[in-house]
């Protein structure tokens, strides 16, 4: 009759001493395997008398259960230890930088154009486009600027080389030819904005030989200067994202509008920044007026029945003002640092619901 107590002690010691899963398995085989010591004990029950079996059965079975439990516990512990060791081994330096990804940006001109479109789309203005190279007729003559008119000199026009037929095409000096093209093909009512690249032979901190304009055109039977005023006020509030603006209307002169009005906005330039709606400075915002009856006539619209307003403002200029870029030239120099500094993220799509800017 083996010493059950000693066996138990010996096996439990072996379990506790097993340093890895292989050693633990060896202990299991030696104790609970087919020929294992405890298995042998259990087998020996078969040859015992009922009285002996009754006495030893619970003893042996108890031994087997405790050893099995100890094995399981040790196995869990060893697994835990192994995982901890692996985790310790797998430690990385999380202060290393993330894998590089290029960060893109949207140019402020595009962003501001999207802002402008969001505002005017709400009032039902479609977006009209036209070519950069234009007919002299569309850029000037149909806008009531005949060939010898002094106002042509105000435009500092770029010309392309003379064509075989003697005509000279121009780089449009404003997006007004888009208004002409629209009026020639569409009957009133008309509500459009015409954004795009424009060109003038001019270059300094606030002038670039290429810049961007958006013009608005409304033609119907009722629209008058009062509607123009309201449009300017509402646009400014929406665009500059302020509750109140104070606009100043100044009579002016453009060959294609009569009466002609320029709009200035009250601002405060003190402290090297521009704030709107306060201060004692005025900032030129847009040129505008009631479309000249002769322009309507030349574009095939009856001026005795239809009338409306037109206005034009600089997209780059609005971007400079709203986002504080003091110099126009870098807009077109593609300096990466500038693009990142003044750029917007792809997901910053301006909406009236979410606000035009963050």
């Amino acid at each position: 009759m083996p010493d059950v107590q000693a066996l138990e002690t010996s096996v439990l010691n072996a379990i506790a001493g097993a340093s890895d899963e292989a050693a633990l398995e060896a202990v299991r085989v030696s104790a609970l395997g087919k020929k294992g010591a405890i298995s042998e004990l259990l087998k020996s029950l078969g040859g015992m008398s009922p009285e002996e079996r009754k006495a030893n059965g619970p003893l042996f079975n108890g031994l087997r259960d405790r050893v099995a439990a100890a094995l399981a516990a040790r196995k869990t512990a060893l697994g835990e230890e192994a995982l901890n060791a692996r985790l310790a081994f797998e430690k990385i330096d999380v202060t290393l930088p993330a894998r590089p990804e290029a960060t893109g940006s949207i140019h402020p001109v595009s962003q501001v154009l999207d802002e402008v479109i969001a505002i005017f789309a709400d009032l039902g203005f479609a977006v009209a486009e036209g070519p950069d190279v234009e007919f002299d007729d569309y850029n000037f003559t149909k806008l009531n600027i005949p060939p010898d008119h002094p106002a042509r000199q105000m435009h500092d026009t770029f010309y392309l080389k003379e064509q075989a037929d003697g005509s000279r095409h121009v780089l449009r000096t404003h997006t007004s030819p888009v208004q002409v093209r629209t009026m020639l093909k569409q009957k009133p009512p008309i509500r459009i904005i015409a954004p795009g690249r424009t060109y003038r032979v001019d270059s300094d901190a606030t002038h670039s030989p290429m810049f961007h304009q958006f013009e608005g055109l409304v033609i119907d039977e009722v629209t008058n200067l009062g509607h123009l005023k309201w449009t300017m006020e509402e646009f400014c509030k929406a665009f500059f994202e302020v509750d109140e603006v104070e606009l100043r209307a100044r009579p002016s002169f453009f060959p294609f509008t009569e009466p002609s009005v320029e709009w200035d906005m009250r601002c405060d330039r003190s402290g090297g920044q521009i704030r709107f709606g306060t201060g004692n400075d005025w900032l030129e915002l847009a040129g505008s007026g009631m479309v000249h009856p002769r322009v309507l006539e030349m574009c095939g619209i009856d001026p005795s029945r239809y009338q409306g307003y037109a206005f034009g403002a600089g997209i780059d200029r609005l971007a400079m003002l709203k986002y504080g870029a003091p110099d126009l030239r870098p807009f077109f120099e593609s300096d990466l640092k500038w693009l990142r500094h003044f750029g917007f993220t792809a997901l910053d799509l301006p909406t009236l619901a979410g606000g035009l800017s963050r």
Partner: protein
Amino acid sequence: MKFTLSWLKDHLDTEADAATIADKLTAIGLEVESVEDVGARIADFTVAHVVSAEKHPNADKLKLCMVDTGADIVQVICGAPNARTGIKVVFAKPGVTIPASGDVLKVGAIRGIESRGMMCSERELLLSDEHDGIIELPADAEVGTPAATALGLDDPVIDIALTPNRGDCASVHGIARDLAAAGLGRLKSGAVHKVPGKFKSPIAVTLQFAPDTKAACPLFVGRYIRGVKNGPSPKWLQDRLRAVGLRPISALVDVTNLLSLDRGRPLHVFDADKLVGNVHARLAEDGEELLALDGKTYALDSAMCVIADSNTARGIAGVMGGEETGCTETTVNVFVESAFFDPVSVAATGRKLGILSDARYRFERGVDPEFVIPGMELATRLILEFCGGEPSEIVVAGSVPQWQREIAFRPDAVKRLAGLDLPLQEITRILTNLGFTVEPGTPLKVMPPSWRSDIDGAADLVEEVVRIHGLEHVPSVPMARPHAIARPVLTAAQKRLRSVRRLLASRGFNECVSYSFIPRVHAALFGGGDEARQLENPIAADLDAMRPSVLPSLLAAAARNQARGISDLVLFEIGAAFDSGLPGEQKTVAAGIRIGAGARDWSKSVHPADAFDAKADLLSAIESAMGSAMTAPVRAGAAQWYHPGRAGTLALGPKVIGQFGELHPRVIAAFDLKGPVAGFEIFLDAIPEPKAKSKARALFAPSAFQPVERDFAFVVDARISAEDVLKPARMVDRALIESVAVFDVYEGKGVPEGKKSLAITVRLQPKDKTLTDAEIEAVAQKIVTAVTKATGGTLRT
């Protein structure tokens, strides 16, 4: 157009100050550029008298002065070398802000002695850079009065920017008329009295034009004045001219400048003794030359109008007089010219010759045709007053050009165009005050005055009424909303462009906006640079060619950034590329480049930009534009600016919608760029419009049966393309085969020379039942057969 407040008040009876006048000018369309009011700036400075000046006991270069300020006598320490007993000075008492420094003057002690004020230099008052000594005022300056008055600087100078239509306001009298109409005072009479001639002019005037060119000068008036004595003009006139930035020259010349500014009437005074024979206006002869008053010789042509004597041209009509017949101090007999020249002709001549003169400024805006003769009378009167002499009778050639016209005006146009409800008498009052004649009736008959050649229709009259009544009174009226909730307005093309822009930015591209004109050498590399796309007058010699592609703009931008030390760039631009120099022959292109060997990265996850990066950019941009997957195959090869072996083109039928690849090494070298460049161009106009379809998606019906994937590796000739392998595999059973993809390409050990192994994976997706092994095997066999047949390759085993 500059003038002073006191000058204005010669024509306008008003109590208004400079600021009020300036605001009103801007409000009625005469935009004030600046008001230079030195008097207001130095209002705190007064005239003082230096009673005594002695050496400072503790300093050699300082003086201890006792100064009479009019209120009291104070002690002042002064370092100016000219500080001495008896002079009159400009004095600042403690508390006054010194303009130059912005500091408030305090009672101080200098070298132990108290100083209670300061005597100022011109620089300290920002009058000039003069700082060698303090200002010495005239001895008769009254102590205690404003220094500005003693300095003759108490007259504010107002500068307005005149729009090209307002020739009538190129004169102080015209400005006064507008202000009076706007309620800021009463216009003083500008009536001119005749000066009777004492003898018959020895010089006759004629107009010598062909019938079709006579509009250049319809009226020419002359007068001979003998026995004048030229010299300096009176001080008041000199002061006035100086105040507006003109240099007084001599009485005769100053009179012409005065008339030009005061009445908008340019004149010319010839030294009559230098003229030969009679005077006439005519067109210049081609090749004729004239030495003008600015000392330059101008080559004239037959489109220009000149004033000539029997010998030669003596003046460029309406632009500038000739030097040789100009007046000098020794001039005794003069011939005064007053004429009406055609605005368009003067503008064209001035522009061609590059002359900006006060005469041109007025003639090209249109002068008052009725003031040609009164202008002569006024000039005569002033010349006689300043220089003496005896006037001849006036000689006249031609006549006042027709200017009278009548505009039928319905006063409700003011309401209709301007939204302003004004009573008829207010409309009539404004127009009448501006010099218009208004005859009652329906419609009204309105006659513009002779000086308003810019007015020709009802809309112009509305503008006059509105600007004088005040634009600020125009009520703000909300525009009607076409729909209660705004409808979308963007076209498919506009949405496409927008989507591509944001997609590219989300892929790491920085958006650029570049000039549409580029250097011709760059244009030539991209199929442009031809004469038709050249600018006639580029802003700079190297910005002369309309760009044939957007890529050269981006490459130049990359080169500029590399020069600043940024080597890796991911840039894009959406803009026009020009196919010719004709309107409409341009396309909208989205182009992008990736450049650089990849940032130095510890994780080694970045690779040098290559054609497959560009392909991914191109495809994802196109797919975002189309809103659906791009299934058309790419074909090898692209335009000449791409690497011939590393570029591809994507076309839908005959329409090329994009190309991509590594750029040609020659192009990269031409831009002086470091590193390979991968680029793409998407021709947005060529992308097909999406078909109008229902907003609802197609029925979602995923197959309930297990998909099966099978891999195949083929050994094919190295020249066989992936698409050559994929296409036949795909075509085996288009219903069953869901996708075919390359997962490995291998050349080298184990594969014969000149061959490559191309491994593909085919995914089968049964729709109605699970596939049996036999069915899978049958499809696999068909794929092997199709691919080997199409490519001449073998299945790799």
